[in-house]
C-alpha cells in the first residue's frame, strides 16, 4: 500500500497532540527529536529500545573534553562556497551568519563549524543522489569555518533547492543546510539542519517535524536579516546555535 502525505500528516498530528498533552500535564519541553519517530521511516530499525544509561560526569570523564581544531584545518576559501570553483554557481547567493553558544550563553571560540547542502536545483554533489536535477560544476556545497572570539561564524553560499526523497509518496525535503558543530566538550557534539523562513514545505517534512515541540522546531528556522544582506551581492540570514550537554567548566562549577 502506498504511503501518502495524508498518512504521514495524520501520524505527525497524533504525535504532536501527544506532546502537547504531556506538556499540559507538566512534562518538560522535548528539545530534541525522539530517536523512535515512525513518520521518518528510516528511524524504525535504527533507534535503541533500551533506555540510555546516565553517566554522571566526574573530572575523569573523557567526554567532558573534546577535539580541537586550528587554522591548519581550514583554508581561507572554505567559508565561501561561491568561490571554490572557476565560475559563479547558479542560484540565489546568501550569507548565513550567527553565533555558536553553550547553554550558559558563553561563546564557543575557535571551534569547527562544517556545513553541506544541495545546489540551487536541489541536487547534492554526491554519487548516490539520484534526483534528476542538474549538478552545478561551480558548486560543491561543502564549507568549513572556525568560530571567532565571540562565537560567530559566517558563510557565503547559495540558497539550496528543495528535493524529493522516498520516505513516502510525494515526499519533499524543504530547503535546508546541514550543519556539524563541536563544542568545548565531546558531549556537546551536534549535527543538525537549518531551514528558511516561510518555506511552505516545513509543515510536511517528517524530519523537521520529528522535533515535536513548537518552540524547539522554530529554533531550526533562520531569520531573514537585512543587516546581513550585502548590496549587489547576497541576502542575509541569521541563525544562532546553542549546544546542549555538559562541559568540564560546568562540572567544576558544580552545575
Amino acid at each position, binding site marked *: 500500500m502506498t504511503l501518502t502525505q495524508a498518512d504521514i500528516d495524520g501520524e505527525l498530528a497524533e504525535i504532536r497532540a501527544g506532546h502537547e498533552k504531556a506538556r499540559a500535564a507538566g512534562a518538560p519541553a522535548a528539545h*530534541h*527529536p*525522539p*530517536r523512535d*519517530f515512525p513518520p*521518518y521511516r*528510516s*528511524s*524504525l*530499525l*535504527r*533507534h*535503541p529500545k*533500551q533506555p540510555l*544509561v*546516565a*553517566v554522571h*560526569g*566526574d573530572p*575523569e570523564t*573523557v*567526554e567532558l*573534553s*573534546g*577535539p*580541537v*581544531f586550528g587554522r*591548519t*584545518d581550514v*583554508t581561507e*576559501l572554505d567559508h565561501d562556497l561561491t568561490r571554490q570553483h572557476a565560475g559563479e554557481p547558479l542560484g540565489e547567493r546568501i550569507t548565513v551568519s550567527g553565533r555558536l553558544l553553550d547553554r*550558559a550563553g558563553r561563546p564557543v571560540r575557535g571551534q569547527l563549524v*562544517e556545513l*553541506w547542502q*544541495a545546489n540551487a536545483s536541489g541536487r*547534492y*554533489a554526491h*554519487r*548516490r543522489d539520484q534526483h534528476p536535477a542538474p549538478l552545478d560544476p561551480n558548486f*560543491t*556545497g561543502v564549507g568549513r569555518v572556525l568560530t571567532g572570539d565571540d562565537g560567530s561564524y559566517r558563510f557565503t553560499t547559495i540558497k539550496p533547492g528543495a528535493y524529493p526523497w522516498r520516505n513516502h509518496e510525494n515526499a519533499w525535503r524543504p530547503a535546508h543546510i*546541514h550543519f556539524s558543530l563541536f563544542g568545548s566538550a*565531546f*558531549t556537546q*557534539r*551536534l*549535527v*543538525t*539542519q537549518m531551514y528558511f523562513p516561510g518555506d511552505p514545505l516545513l509543515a510536511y517534512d517528517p*524530519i523537521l517535524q*520529528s*522535533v515535536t515541540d513548537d518552540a*524547539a*522546531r522554530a*529554533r*531550526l528556522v533562520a531569520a531573514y536579516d537585512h543587516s546581513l544582506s550585502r548590496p549587489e551581492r547576497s541576502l542575509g540570514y541569521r541563525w544562532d546555535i*546553542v*549546544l*546542549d550537554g*555538559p562541559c568540564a567548566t560546568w562540572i567544576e562549577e558544580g552545575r
Partner: protein
Amino acid sequence: MTYLPPTPSHTVGPFYGYALPFPGGGDVAPRERSDAITLHGYVYDGAGEPVPDALVEFWQADPGGSVAGAPGSMRRDPVTGGFLGRDGVAFTGFGRVPTDADGHYAVRTLPPGAPAVPYISVCVFARGLTHHLFTRAYLAEGPDALLASLTPERRATLIARPEPHRTHRFDIRLQGEEETVFLDFA
C-alpha cells in the same frame, strides 16, 4: 541562572559522505608508531543488517593521559584546498570514519593513557538516526563506575574484544538483541 534552550538535533542524512569524512580520518596514530592499536567493527541495525551509511567519531586521551587534544586532524592545503592529512607527528585524539558498504569501520590509534580503565569515546551518526548516540569502547575491564552499573550482558557490549596484532573488535548494535549500551551525559 537560566539556561538557553538548545538547538535540536537532526539526522546526518544520506548525503554527508562527500562533506564530513576526510582522508586520514581513521589514522589517529602518527605514522611509524609501533605501539598503535586498531579498533574496528561493524554497525548493525535492528534487523541485524549492516548499516552502510553511518559515520563514527572517536575521541580519547593521548597515551600520557592528556585530553587537551591538538589541532590538525584534517589539515588542509592552502594552495589547492585539498587535504594534506595529519602531520604524521602530532596526536589529535580525534577520529572520524564512515562505515563502508559492509557496515565496517576501522580506526588506527594509540592506547589512551586515561582514565584508569581506558576507553575510547564513540559517537555514532546515521541516516535514520534523529539524534547521535554516544557509547564507549573499553579496551580493558576493571573498576569503572559505568561498567559496574550494568548487568554482565549489557556490560559486554562495551568491551572491545582483543584480537591478534594489537587489534580490538567493537561492534555497534543500534537495536535488538545485544543492543549496545548508549550513554546520556545530560
